[in-house]
């Protein structure tokens, strides 16, 4: 482990020996003048410094969470120094194009960034009154997102995935293609990796480099072999960087955090080491508040030029959407893009599940003046019809396709077309929104007009060109 590059001036008392070491926690007795959440440097027997922070403080002792793991530490020889401040990250625009470790230290061999601007990584809550409601449509060039679950600038929209599903490819495609319709410049990317494998990180670095976005990206990597507690700080470090870029430098930032499930597991690990009363599936009762303190750091601020748009990847254990991690995330984020294993197995990329995916901010970012006047009605109608397709498929499984009514057979065709023509697209195919909407109408035109209750006559006249009635 490297020596810290941004160690503050020597001050604070140094303590020798700990009374107890358990999991990622170290208990240090008889400490003085130590604050809650203060940063601690711990010298291990090999002479390396490890970072930690104070989780609990009383007159007699401090509980320190060692971010780089406690392996090799010994109660008698351990030396700790309290730095007199909470965890702060030096931020500057020069950090663009660089790669850092999970705690914000250079990991690309370069020098530590010079900056006198140190920011508390915990951030501060944005005053809701100061927020500006996000409503600028972001074109990702992916029909399933743009057409049916549109993303807007300042939104937090995670990807709910499962092991083996192509969430990384999808995220990479979003990073490559996302921009406002009338703008050429893309986003500044802040990438936070928590416990992902080396080759996945490598994939994302390559994607950024090949698309030329690396110069506008900052990466914070806490990979699978890094100590798991370190991950608790990685998203905070990344979001602190993003806030600086967005609200001090006026840039539009897209933050990708992956994989949130690993983050939550680290949180559970620390909770159980502290002997906390566990909530569902052993996760701490404050998981919701903790996740909110990350996800809510997205948005726009009145009067600030920049914005933070967030997308987080989380893998649902056993594809279970009711697992605490996706469940609590869904309650905080403004919708979710859900990947579907069945679509994936049928070879459809991107395998974005039609029904459980949702973008809550779509309603204010699409339609006349934003995308196209027909967009809201079209999306709503596609959802309604696709929901019926699911029912027909269930029926067909039981009675066989031949015995379906002619109308229901039409619905099957529609469902197939929606998946094959609208959802399915190439990994490097960047569809303009108008094309996405046109394909949507083309697919919808497979159904008789009578079935389209959510489309007004005026819109139908303009866009619908299907068979009027069934024989």
């Amino acid at each position: 482990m490297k020596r810290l590059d941004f160690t503050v001036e020597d001050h604070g008392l140094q303590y020798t020996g700990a009374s107890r070491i358990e999991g990622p926690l170290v208990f240090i007795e008889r400490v003085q003048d130590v604050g809650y959440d203060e940063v601690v440097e711990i010298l291990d027997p090999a002479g390396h410094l490890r970072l930690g922070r104070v989780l609990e403080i009383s007159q007699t002792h401090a509980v320190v969470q060692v971010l780089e793991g406690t392996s090799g530490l010994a109660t008698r020889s351990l030396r700790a120094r309290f730095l007199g401040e909470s965890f702060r990250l030096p931020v500057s625009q020069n950090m663009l194009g660089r790669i850092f470790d999970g705690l914000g230290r250079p990991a690309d061999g370069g020098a530590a960034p010079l900056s006198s601007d140190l920011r508390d990584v915990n951030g501060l809550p944005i005053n809701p009154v100061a927020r500006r409601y996000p409503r600028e449509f972001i074109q990702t060039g992916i029909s399933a997102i743009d057409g049916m679950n549109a993303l807007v600038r300042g939104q937090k929209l995670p990807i709910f995935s499962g092991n083996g599903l192509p969430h990384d490819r999808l995220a990479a495609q979003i990073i490559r293609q996302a921009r406002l319709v009338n703008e050429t410049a893309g986003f500044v990317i802040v990438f936070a990796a928590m416990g992902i494998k080396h080759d996945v990180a490598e994939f994302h670095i390559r994607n950024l480099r090949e698309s030329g976005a690396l110069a506008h990206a900052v990466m914070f990597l806490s990979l699978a072999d890094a100590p798991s507690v370190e991950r608790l700080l990685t998203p905070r470090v990344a979001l602190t960087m993003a806030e600086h870029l967005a609200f001090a430098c006026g840039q539009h930032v897209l933050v990708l955090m992956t994989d949130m499930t690993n983050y939550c597991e680290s949180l559970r690990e620390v909770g159980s080491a502290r002997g906390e009363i566990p909530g569902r599936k052993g996760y701490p009762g404050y998981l919701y508040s903790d996740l909110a303190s990350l996800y809510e750091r997205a948005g726009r601020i009145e009067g600030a030029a920049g914005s933070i748009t967030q997308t987080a990847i989380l893998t649902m254990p056993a594809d279970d959407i009711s697992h605490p991690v996706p469940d609590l995330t869904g309650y905080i984020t403004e919708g979710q893009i859900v990947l579907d294993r069945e679509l994936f197995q049928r070879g459809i990329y991107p395998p974005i599940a039609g029904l459980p995916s949702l973008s809550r901010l779509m309603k204010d970012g699409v339609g006349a003046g934003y995308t196209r006047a027909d967009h809201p009605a079209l999306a709503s109608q596609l959802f309604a019809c696709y929901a019926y397709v699911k029912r027909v498929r269930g029926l067909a499984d039981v009675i066989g396709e031949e015995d379906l009514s002619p109308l229901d057979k039409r619905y099957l065709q529609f469902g197939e077309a929606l998946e094959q023509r609208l959802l399915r697209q190439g990994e490097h195919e960047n569809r303009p929104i108008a094309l996405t909407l046109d394909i949507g109408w083309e697919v919808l035109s497979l159904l008789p007009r009578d079935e389209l209750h959510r489309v007004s006559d005026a819109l139908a006249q303009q866009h619908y060109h299907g068979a009027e009635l069934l024989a």
Partner: protein
Amino acid sequence: MMPVGNSLVSGVSGPTVTAIGMAEAQMYEVVEVGELGLIGEVVRLLGDRATIQVYEDTTMLKPGAPVRRTGAPLSVWLGPGLLGGIYDGIQRPLPGLLAHSDAWIRPGEKIDPLDLRKKWNFTPLLRAGDTLSAGQMLGEVAETGLVKHLVMAPPGLTGVIRSVVAQGAYTLEDSLAVVTTAAGPRELRMLQKWPVRVARPIRERLRITEPLLTGQRIIDALFPLGKGGTAVIPGGFGTGKTITQHQLAKWSDAEIILFIGCGERGNEMTEVLRDFPELQDPRSGRPLMERTILIANTSNMPVAAREVSIYTGINLAEYYRDMGKSVAVLADSTSRWAEALRELAARLEEMPAEEGFPASLPTRLAQFYERAGAVTTLGGARGSISIVGAVSPPGGDFAEPVTQHTRRFTRCFWALDTELANARHYPSIHWLHSYSEYVEDVSAWWEQKAPGYRALRNETLALLQREERLQQIIKLVGPDVLPDSQRLIVFIADLLKDGFLTQNAFDEKDMFCSPERQVALLRLILTLYRRGKELIEAGTPLAKLRSLTSVPRLLRAKSTFSDAQMDGLAQLERELAKELDELAHAQAHGPGSQA
């Protein structure tokens, strides 16, 4: 009393702080902790040690930091100027915080909830020599264009008015009257303070007789809430709890709306702040913000303040109720509040009950919902508080403790359904899983407003129930084996779903629906059913009914005719009747009648 300097922080663990030298402290007393003066509340006393729940971030707070006692419990400020306001959980005005610093909320900032310099035009209604009893009004202030604010004698104060000021502009702290009471003279001001954890007294509770109209068809017509009643909206994420709450906040016919955003998204509060000043109250034409108070303690704001935000909100509601107004409290989401209770209980090392929630959870929920009710106020007026609480069950599972306990203490259950939401059927309130115990209470009111209401409601629910059973069969064998009489039910149920139960919150004409229009729409669809049933029994095929030109128009009627265009609906009803007559005629006389 012990010198203040002796009270010191002895330990910090997140929002829970322990202090020593607190022998004189009282339970629920407010204290200011550390150099920043973080606001906290004493929640446990043990010898001279106190446990303090701190409402702000405690980063870098150290043992040995000073603790300053205030000697008073946490209190809300009451007086004109609350309406249109947006506060955090401990009643700090968020616009004030923004003006004071910047876009970020920093620990230790203190701003008065109400503007003490602003002058309000006060009109006295009593004179010197009059007796004034608790809760009785002394005078009034036009708080907004929509709401007349009554200045009342606080609970516990009764006496004879010695002097009262003339009509004119006064600040909140100006003395308005001097009252001779048994305990000596007391001054009355516009500004009053009330301990946040104490319910305001009333004279008596009344029976609920009037519905709280929401303009939402499935709620008003099928599962009505009474003025003074309680309702719960449980639903997994993405089922539309918040949109439903927003709709209620916009269109409910309560005089005052209290929206408590408790541990929810920041952008949702921003949306309310953006929309409400521009939206007009459908009854008065005034901006909705003039009758609305927002409490916003978003999910990333300190968790202890989330716990208290519910009480702050309900106290403000009770204050307006005491003026004889109908108040609707919309709490989104009570699950986040329960989680705050859980988190704080865990920090205090209380023994957990179900799923880690404290054993006191049911009691706390009951206490909260019991503060709803139609009442006679101390001043003798009729006021009401209706509470609608959203619940966010983990995994959408209604068997979890918060949903289950809330169900015990509320009488209206609007169950949001994930499958409906997935099909973008909004509001996704499921007609078979929801119920209202207020139907009997408000039926008389409805019958007067729209005769035939009760029969229409019962018939609608019966149809939907039968359709659900038929769907089970259809799932197994397909719709084609059903006889036309049963397929008619499926057809009508689809019409009910698309033409009545779904309601577009973003459509000008559809977002709000008057009770008269609700009944008219329902009657239209059920007319088709009743007549259609007769025709099918006489041998007309269902396909003929389906292809009536009125059918698609009927489906779109909800967004074609506004409340002001009831004659359009009547016209459609006549045309439908005519078409049905023609069908019947053809059936009786036509050449194809035997087909």
